[in-house]
């Protein structure tokens, strides 16, 4: 006699240990295999774009910190660059260098978090996560020295940064730059050629280069699929045209490659910070001291390479002190487009790992 069975619908999230914030997947399952995925988002929607219309340009900076709460420095940078393009303000030299140092340190922090939680999803009992958090804390101490806060930094202002780095910042940065490569080798030793990790992530959730471009994926996820597209190289902003670094590119675009991209990008970021520290000159750190920034009417969109992908603020100004419309091109949201294609056909365990490898931050997805 034939046993009749039909697909079960399993809800992963919104209250679930490994959904990187508040995210829900309605999986239609046949036993362990996934037949259909429907991501449900919006649990962390705070209406940042509506709020921005009631705040003046400098107050919106505190809003941008809280979008991708793991990489607030690069959020500030994207917003401030867009404002400067709006009013034609050119930031000071030292301000730009400090911005790039902050952004690259933030990229290292964001990739550490992504790698740590990627291993946590794979089941390693929080040990790689603890190592990543331990190193992340040392960089957050630097941020605390630089701008007074560890997570919501609000460090950048239109025209540069709000205050110069304190004297004890540079030796502390020097210490980190010296012993970080050794630490990254240790973290890689724990993960990269661990048979169980390769066994579970190689070939899982692969996306081809063409599909990735068509699905507007950007950042490490796109580069893992073999497409060499990095906004820092394509459209250099701040001082990225004066530093040399290479862009790691994967080949198959599976979970393993996405993890490798992040580890290699951490090494590249270290190189960039090294060059910035060498090239930085004393000088003013802020072009304008304007409290009420009032750009001429117009619009601007300056994309940057945030840790999660291409982040850009589309600002429309009508000449008043508040932006008329602010739209955030959120890389985390758009990287979710191809999730169904990545997960269908795989197992329940792979769904969590593939979602983890996309390194999505719910604060940025829902805004």
């Amino acid at each position: 006699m034939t046993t009749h069975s039909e697909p079960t619908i399993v809800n992963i999230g919104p209250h679930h240990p490994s959904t990187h914030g508040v995210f829900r997947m309605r999986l239609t399952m046949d036993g362990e295999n996934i037949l259909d995925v429907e991501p449900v988002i919006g649990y962390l929607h705070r209406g940042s774009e509506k709020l921005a219309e009631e705040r003046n340009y400098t107050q919106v900076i505190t809003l941008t910190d809280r979008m991708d709460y793991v990489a607030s420095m690069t959020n500030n940078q994207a917003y401030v660059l867009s404002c400067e393009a709006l009013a034609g303000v050119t930031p000071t030299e030292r301000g730009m260098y400090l911005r790039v140092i902050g952004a690259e340190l933030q990229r290292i922090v964001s990739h550490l978090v992504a790698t740590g939680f990627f291993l946590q999803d794979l089941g390693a009992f929080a040990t790689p996560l603890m190592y990543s958090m331990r190193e992340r804390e040392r960089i957050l101490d630097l941020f605390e020295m630089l701008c007074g806060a560890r997570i919501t930094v609000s460090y950048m202002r239109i025209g540069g940064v709000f205050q110069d780095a304190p004297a004890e910042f540079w030796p502390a940065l020097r210490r980190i730059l010296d012993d970080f490569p050794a630490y990254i080798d240790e973290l890689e030793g724990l993960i990269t050629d661990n048979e169980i990790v390769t066994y579970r992530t190689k070939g899982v959730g692969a996306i081809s280069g063409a599909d990735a471009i068509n699905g507007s994926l950007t950042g490490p996820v796109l580069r893992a699929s073999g497409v060499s597209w990095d906004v820092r190289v394509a459209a250099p902003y701040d001082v990225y045209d004066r530093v040399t670094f290479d862009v790691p590119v994967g080949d198959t675009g599976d979970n393993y490659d996405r993890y490798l991209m992040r580890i290699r990008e951490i090494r590249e970021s270290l190189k960039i910070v090294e060059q910035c520290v060498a090239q930085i000159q004393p000088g003013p750190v802020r072009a304008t001291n304007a409290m009420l920034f009032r750009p001429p009417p117009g619009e601007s969109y300056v994309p940057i390479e945030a840790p999660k992908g291409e982040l850009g603020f589309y600002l429309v100004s009508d000449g008043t002190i508040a932006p008329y419309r602010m739209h955030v091109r959120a890389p985390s949201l758009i990287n979710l487009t191809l999730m169904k294609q990545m997960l269908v056909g795989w197992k329940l365990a792979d769904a969590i790992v593939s979602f983890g490898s996309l390194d999505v931050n719910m604060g940025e997805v829902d805004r």
Partner: protein
Amino acid sequence: MTTAVTGNELADTVQRRFPEAVEEASEGALRVAPDAIADVCRFLREDALQDFDLLSSLTAVDYVEYFEIVYHLTSIARNASVVLKARVYGREAPALPSVVGVWQGADLQEREAFDLMGVTFTGHPNLKRMLTWEGFQGYPLRRDYLEPPLPYTWPQGG
């Protein structure tokens, strides 16, 4: 450096292919008739010369008299970017063809524009609310959206 293709340069190539599509070409962007947007986008993507294969960002802006949908396109091979715009009039049911057929990346961005601005994209596979819950009435990002006075109870969402 990404060469920003201006609206004027693009105007005549698009004009030749789609005579009545171009409404206005300025330094910053090329404004196209709303119902021709899908065809122009397909042309810009598939044409070997243009090759805009990455839809960077899709935004809806509410200018009270009309809604303006802004498309930021990028060509990875040519390292070029262009801004395409389309204006949709009327506030009850503004609609224009969806470009999900051209770039799959537009899927979630169009759903967000529909959810927050109320612009329907015809031909979108599952145009549903994304950020607000199913029982939500009104489109919050519109300039004339007024939060109903408290205490209000939304019907139980899906």
